[in-house]
């Protein structure tokens, strides 16, 4: 300690002049740093901002002038929203699709949540033969792109299962809004590998003493699961719930294939993609429509960001 003191003193004296230079450089550095980060932040925000401003401008204005002229000539209308949400036929009717999105999303979040937490509990705290292999199998399924499953799964719904000429399962033959069931089914299947993996990460880290104590008290597995595990893993459930919610609400591919394109079942993403393709210049509808579809996930996301980030880190960094 005593031998170290002089060297520190010398060091401080010697670096005295350079620190001032360093301080100036540091301030400059932090100024460029601030500038660069502001530029990135603006670049990332402007497109969404422009869309929002446009969605509240009158149709004629949107189509003839840029949205940045709004500030010199502010005209506000809600007509675009009115039109895209409620008018019948090809021009919008987005309210109907909004309900479809809700009807698709809620069960598609609940089912994998329940099934995966049951499975994750069994894989973490029950002893049975081949447990590790089952877990590795489910884990490995994460890498199968869902494209691999689309054609046969659609055939499973439309023609049922036939083995060697014998009909084992009939076709589902769903019409109109019944097709929601197909979408729920597909989303649940595709979500399970990741859900089991994420929840297993959390459940397996619960203290073993707790389980042991409950077992000694004579609690059965279902009871431990309900009364001890579920309350403890609520943050993980929330994390996965938000994940799955955003994924399903924003999904286009699965809905396109399993829900069809009609207003009975198709969610908003399908409708918007269709509008963007067939009416690419109807910006008053596209901007308002896009904003309607963005609002719900944005609210969910902002209010539950904490859980989402935690889930993201647990899912990607650990695994």
């Amino acid at each position, binding site marked *: 300690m005593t031998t170290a003191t002089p060297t520190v003193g010398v060091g401080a004296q010697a670096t005295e002049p350079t620190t001032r230079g360093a301080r100036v450089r540091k301030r400059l550095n932090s100024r460029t740093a601030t500038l660069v980060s502001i530029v990135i932040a603006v670049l990332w925000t402007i497109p969404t901002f422009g869309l929002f401003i446009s969605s509240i401008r009158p149709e004629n204005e949107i189509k003839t002038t840029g949205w940045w002229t709004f500030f010199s000539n502010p005209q506000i209308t809600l007509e675009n929203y009115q039109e895209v949400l409620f008018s019948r036929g090809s021009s919008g009717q987005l309210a109907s699709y909004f309900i479809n999105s809700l009807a698709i999303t809620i069960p598609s979040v609940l089912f994998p949540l329940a099934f995966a937490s049951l499975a994750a509990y069994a894989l973490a705290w029950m002893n049975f033969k081949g447990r590790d292999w089952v877990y590795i199998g489910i884990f490995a399924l994460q890498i199968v792109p869902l494209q691999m499953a689309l054609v046969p799964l659609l055939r499973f719904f439309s023609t049922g299962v036939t083995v060697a000429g014998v009909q084992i399962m009939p076709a589902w033959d769903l019409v109109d809004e019944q097709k929601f069931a197909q979408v729920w089914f597909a989303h649940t299947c595709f979500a399970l590998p990741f859900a089991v993996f994420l929840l297993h990460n959390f459940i397996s880290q619960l203290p073993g003493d707790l389980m042991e104590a409950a077992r000694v008290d004579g609690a059965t597995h279902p009871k431990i699961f309900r009364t001890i595990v579920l309350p403890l893993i609520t943050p993980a459930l929330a994390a996965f719930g938000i994940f799955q919610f955003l994924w399903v609400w924003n999904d286009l591919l699965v809905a*396109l294939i399993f829900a069809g394109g009609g207003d009975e079942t198709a969610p908003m993403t399908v409708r918007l993609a269709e509008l963007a393709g067939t009416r690419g210049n109807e910006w008053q509808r596209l901007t308002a429509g896009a904003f309607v579809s963005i609002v719900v996930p944005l609210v969910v996301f902002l209010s539950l960001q904490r859980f989402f980030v935690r889930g993201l880190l647990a899912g990607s960094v650990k695994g």
Partner: protein
Amino acid sequence: MEFDFAAEQPKFLMLMYGLIAFVAVVGGLLLLLDVVPSFFARRREAQLVAASASGAPLPRRRKQGEGAFAFFFLLPTLLLLAIGLVVPAIRTTLLSFMDSGSNDWVGLDNYRWMFAEDSIVRVLINTLIWVLLVPLVATGFGLIYAVLVDKARFEAVAKSLIFLPMAISFVGASIIWKFVYAYRGEGDQIGLLNQIVVSLGGEPKQWLLDSPLNTFLLIVIMVWIQAGFAMVVLSAAIKAIPADIVEAARLDGTTPWQMFWRITMPSIRPALIVVVVTLSIATLKVFDIVRTATNGNYDTNVIATEMYNQAFRYQENGQGSALAVFLFILVIPIVIYQIRNLRKQREG
């Protein structure tokens, strides 16, 4: 208002059926698992009481296996995975060796077609451009931003600004950016990009029709969405760097530049790899952006959109399946790399 609320009622009814099914299945399963064992427990108790009353030797307790319990806990998941993923994936692999109607075996024809057809080769090249660019650029932006705003005054707000696009659907993001790229022949421009070009004295153009530039413009959309993901994960990794290392480096008088390359980068290497791998896999499967922005026209197609077109628009099941299998094959080396990396990390 012409909106007919009554017409929407069947949907709510269906949603209710779905929720009832959920409660029935999950509740039923838990109830089943609760009631059955407690029934056996009670019977055993009664046996014990009877045995002790009659003075007979206590019946030996059978070793209780948990296999039956575990089976029921795992049943829904395993069943759904088998029906929804495992069997379909195997069938898709088989279909990729069959013709468009899945009637006859055609060997490797579908794969040969993939590399012989000019338009499909173009699709493969596009996908390659996507996979090379998106992970690098998105991670780059995410990393720069994470370093710059680390410990800044408005860190939380600054981070959510970049993170926000993650909540927006790919479809919504594509519309947002299509609006940025919008073009008008005469009069004022309404798209921001063309406006900038015009104000710099250039000629406005139809950006999305211009190959190969349009592919890069679509890549911008993906980068815009995914940079937030990279930023969050990397930011967490940066914060996890032990404070004493940073402090020691600072005492040694390292410049921020040296600090970044010698301290930050080596410390967050594992997180960087995870981000790049995750983004690569996500980029390989990109579908929504291309479909919404250009519908795969003007030479912007990628594997996932072409797979959709072949299988579901042209009813070419064989060729569609071959593309799906190829996508899977492309993912495998990335995953193996990540697993090996993780193992190395764990061994220290």
